[in-house]
């Protein structure tokens, strides 16, 4: 920790970065073509959309200390509420299955009369006819107030003393839940929205062309930014919020309830975000479940530049980020120096820019978020030491049982569910190593999986690398990327790391996985599995008089491949927890300073964890590509990373048992196969239940499902053993 000369170095870097930035800006403004594309109406408007989401994030953070990953999803949800009110006059409600409908199947199984069909919970409040602009707007904003209150009272107030990780988890849960509700109700296709303002063109000086709605939204965003700045700068309310952010105790002594302040700020933020979401949808003349939520990455980048406290800096950064994306498109088309692949411009460069900005900002600033003066601090779920029985008896029994079930007993749909679960276990395991053992949040596990999956396709299909070597090479390269990501992570902690990894996942997805020279375009990135494991093969296998296979897809032998690799990885991680390296990881997670004081090399420990985690994810990516017969960009999206992180946390983030539970729960896994095939719950509820489960787990049972069981069990056994010990001592 010798950093006596670090301050000047950092200052120099700061100046260099600022100088390069100014130079680039000047260069852009001097050249007429560049200027026209940089200062375009659509560029500025897309900046305004980023700012709209970003200032809501800053507001929530200042008000309650939560970095809200779901702010984009909230904007999207409000836009849907508005759009449906306008076009149908309905206020739609989250589609929840009637819990009693679980009884339908068993009842119908036994009774021979007319099938039992219980009514579903109502899914809308109808206002009769389509609504006009102002009634629809009012109802939507009222809805936003309710949503803000719900977020505060139901989720973040109970979580106010939870560790930052739990808050991130809850906000990711909200993200997934809101998105899932909308997908369930309206499918993923865009829904048209009647524009609020006309799209008549307006010419401004300096050759900037706006359409009227773009200009209005941009101006509104600027006004909101100023208003928020003034609110926090000049009013008693703003002063109190600032005081509470500095020191909750201090605010209490001064007679302010931090809870009240944070509630008000939540409502303010959802209303503002909702309003801007409506305007965004109006500009785009359509709304879909993916576009607005995806603004979260540039918005978080902007908020980070503003250090989660400055509305002005955040807005400036947001506008610039929006404007650069237009410029990147232009540069890609026209400039010969622009990086190219397969003849056309390298895609997704506008997504790489936020990543670079985040890494630079964090590098220059070095430290994590401004620390909020909370009264208590929480900690991560407990990571139990695997018992001898679990390692020697339960583990092998489970493997044998899974093999018997998968090879001989399972119907095709359960075989499919089982492979999904086994691969899910691996992805969850990769989160256990990194988040559970070392306390580092990574929201880009599917990016590592994808890197390995696509590399496998290149190696195996184009270069003929044989089966066990190619996936191992893919996983090793993923591991190398993991180590690379770990390098900034050495200086970055907690929520900031979650942001970096999210941006990394988005950048890799946009620049690599969606690159047609990587994903093979229409021909797809083919991965040919070894014949025995080919999931589309329907040949039966006869072995010592035993027949495996029932002439149906998927091939049961695919399960064997997944099971072998997953079991190996499970034992690798169990071993890690039982060994010195695992103890050092947990020590690092507990207290980095104390760990360093007993000679633990904290940086090294983190790099190891990142490497191993990415390796496991990479292996999962390779195996899943074998199973699908190709590597597909849709499987490795950043949303998938969020979903898997959710299920890993839901299962229990800090133990192998938790990873197994998470794997059972993943979408398309065993748990949902059971729900769907035996209890006949429609599959669209998967993600809704996942998001809802994630939020409730974060609040009620932060140790995850597996942790919850084992800690209850431990309490019982501990009571007995303590009594004995006390007798001996006394």
């Amino acid at each position, binding site marked *: *920790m010798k950093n006596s000369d670090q301050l000047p170095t950092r200052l120099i870097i700061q100046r260099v970065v600022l100088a390069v930035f100014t130079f680039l800006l000047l260069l852009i403004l001097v050249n007429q073509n560049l200027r026209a594309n940089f200062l375009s109406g659509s560029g500025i408007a897309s900046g305004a959309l980023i700012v709209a989401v970003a200032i809501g994030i800053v507001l929530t953070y200042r008000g309650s200390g939560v970095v809200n990953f779901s702010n984009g999803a909230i904007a999207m949800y409000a836009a849907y509420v508005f759009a449906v009110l306008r076009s149908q006059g309905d206020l739609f409600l989250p589609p929840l299955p009637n819990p009693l409908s679980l009884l339908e199947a068993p009842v119908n199984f036994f009774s021979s009369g007319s099938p039992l069909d219980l009514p579903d919970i109502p899914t809308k409040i109808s206002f009769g006819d389509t609504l006009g602009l102002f009634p629809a707007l009012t109802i939507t904003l009222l809805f936003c107030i309710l949503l803000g209150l719900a977020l505060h009272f139901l989720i973040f107030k109970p979580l106010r003393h939870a560790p930052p990780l739990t808050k991130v988890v809850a906000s990711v849960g909200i993200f997934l839940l809101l998105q899932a509700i909308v997908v369930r109700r309206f499918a993923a296709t865009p829904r048209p929205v009647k524009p609020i303002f006309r799209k008549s063109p307006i010419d401004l000086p300096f050759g900037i062309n706006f359409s009227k709605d773009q200009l209005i939204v941009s101006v509104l965003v600027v006004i909101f930014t100023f208003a928020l700045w003034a609110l926090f700068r000049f009013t008693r309310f703003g002063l109190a919020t600032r005081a509470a952010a500095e020191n909750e105790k201090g605010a209490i002594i001064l007679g302010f309830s931090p809870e009240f302040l944070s509630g008000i700020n939540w409502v303010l933020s959802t209303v503002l975000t909702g309003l801007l979401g409506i305007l965004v949808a109006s500009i785009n003349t359509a709304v879909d479940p993916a576009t607005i939520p995806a603004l979260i990455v540039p918005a978080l980048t902007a908020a980070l530049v503003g250090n989660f406290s400055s509305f002005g800096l955040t807005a400036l950064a947001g506008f610039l980020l929006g404007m650069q994306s237009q410029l990147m498109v232009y540069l890609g088309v026209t400039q010969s120096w622009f990086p190219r692949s397969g003849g056309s411009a390298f895609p997704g460069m506008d997504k790489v820019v936020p990543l670079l900005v985040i890494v630079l900002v964090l590098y220059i600033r070095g430290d994590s978020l401004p620390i909020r003066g909370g009264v208590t601090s929480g900690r991560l779920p407990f990571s139990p030491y695997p018992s001898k029985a679990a390692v020697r008896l339960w583990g092998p029994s489970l493997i044998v049982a899974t093999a018997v079930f998968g090879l001989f007993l399972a119907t095709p749909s359960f075989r499919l569910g089982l492979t999904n679960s086994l691969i899910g276990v691996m992805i969850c395991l990769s989160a256990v190593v990194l988040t559970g053992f070392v306390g580092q949040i990574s929201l880009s596990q599917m990016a590592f999986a994808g890197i390995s999956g696509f590399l496998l396709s290149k190696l195996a299909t184009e270069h003929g690398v044989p089966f066990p070597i190619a996936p191992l090479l893919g996983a090793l390269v993923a591991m190398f990327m993991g180590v690379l990501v770990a390098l900034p992570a050495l200086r970055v902690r907690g929520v900031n790391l979650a942001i970096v990894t999210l941006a990394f996942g988005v950048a890799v997805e946009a620049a690599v996985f969606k690159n047609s020279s990587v994903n093979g375009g229409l021909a797809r990135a083919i991965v040919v599995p070894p014949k025995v494991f080919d999931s589309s093969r329907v040949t039966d296998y006869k072995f010592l008089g035993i027949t495996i296979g029932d002439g149906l897809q998927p091939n049961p032998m695919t399960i064997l491949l997944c099971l072998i690799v997953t079991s190996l990885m499970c034992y690798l991680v169990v071993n890690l927890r039982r060994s*010195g390296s695992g103890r050092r990881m947990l020590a690092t997670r507990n207290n980095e*300073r104390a760990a360093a004081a007993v000679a633990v*090399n904290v940086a090294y420990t983190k790099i190891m964890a990142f490497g191993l985690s990415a390796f496991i994810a990479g292996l999962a990516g390779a195996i899943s590509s074998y199973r699908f017969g190709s590597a597909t960009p849709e499987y490795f999206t950043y949303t998938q990373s969020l979903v898997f992180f959710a299920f890993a946390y839901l299962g229990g983030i800090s133990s192998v048992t938790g990873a197994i539970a998470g794997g059972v729960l993943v979408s398309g896994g065993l748990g949902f196969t059971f729900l769907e095939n035996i209890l006949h719950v429609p599959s669209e509820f998967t993600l809704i239940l996942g998001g809802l489960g994630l939020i409730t787990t974060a609040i009620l049972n932060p140790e995850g499902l597996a942790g919850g069981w084992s800690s209850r069990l431990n309490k019982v056994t501990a009571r007995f053993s303590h009594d004995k010990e006390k007798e001996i001592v006394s």
Partner: protein
Amino acid sequence: MTLFETSSMSVAFGGLRAVDNVDIAVEKGKLVGLIGPNGAGKTTFIDGVTGFVPTTGRIMLDGKDISSSPAHRRAAAGLGRTWQSLELFDDLTIEENLQVAAENQTLATFIADAFLPLRSRDHSGVQFALDVLGISNLRGRMPNELSQGQRKLVSAARALAGRPKLLCMDEPAAGLDTQESQQLGLRLRDIIDAGITILLVDHDMGLVLNVCDYIYVIEFGHKIAEGTPSQIKKDPAVIKAYLGSASQESSE
């Protein structure tokens, strides 16, 4: 023989020099005290010595200059420390807490750990530390199940498990009553008898004067006195530092 030495060591926070050109030397096998009133810079001194805040000047341990090493290297070189707030690893048992300190770490151990987690490792440091402090009965317990006094012992044991050459103890007597403080003194002598040198930082005059072989006194980041306990008791600068403010207050 001098085991540990700082020469003109300083710690600056912005314009404030929390530790200003402090020279101390610790003889091998001795119990050396560093005392000073509240805010004198004692904890900052330990943080500087052990590598947790940037310092200028030279820090020598066993003939090697460690002033440019990061914290974990200093610890590996034989510089152990305890924390005023203990900082135990709450997710690990007492034994595991000590094992973390007793084991070394290489790429080879990481790979071996993945396949042979329970192969025999040198954990003699763990038993040594548990024996010296007489807490073998606590090995399977979790930190949050222990009393504050037991936690203090565990915190010292964890530092000892790494078999340090020099153990820096930050305010071990904080929160203890007079009797407990005396018992702590006896434990410290046990540690010395086990062959480990101690630098004891505390503001409890009674404890330090009773158990230490040699004492340094700092105030506002400056060293104001050094000597044996009997010399320190008589030193006018020390009396002024400890009583001066009190006598001024009473005269007002």
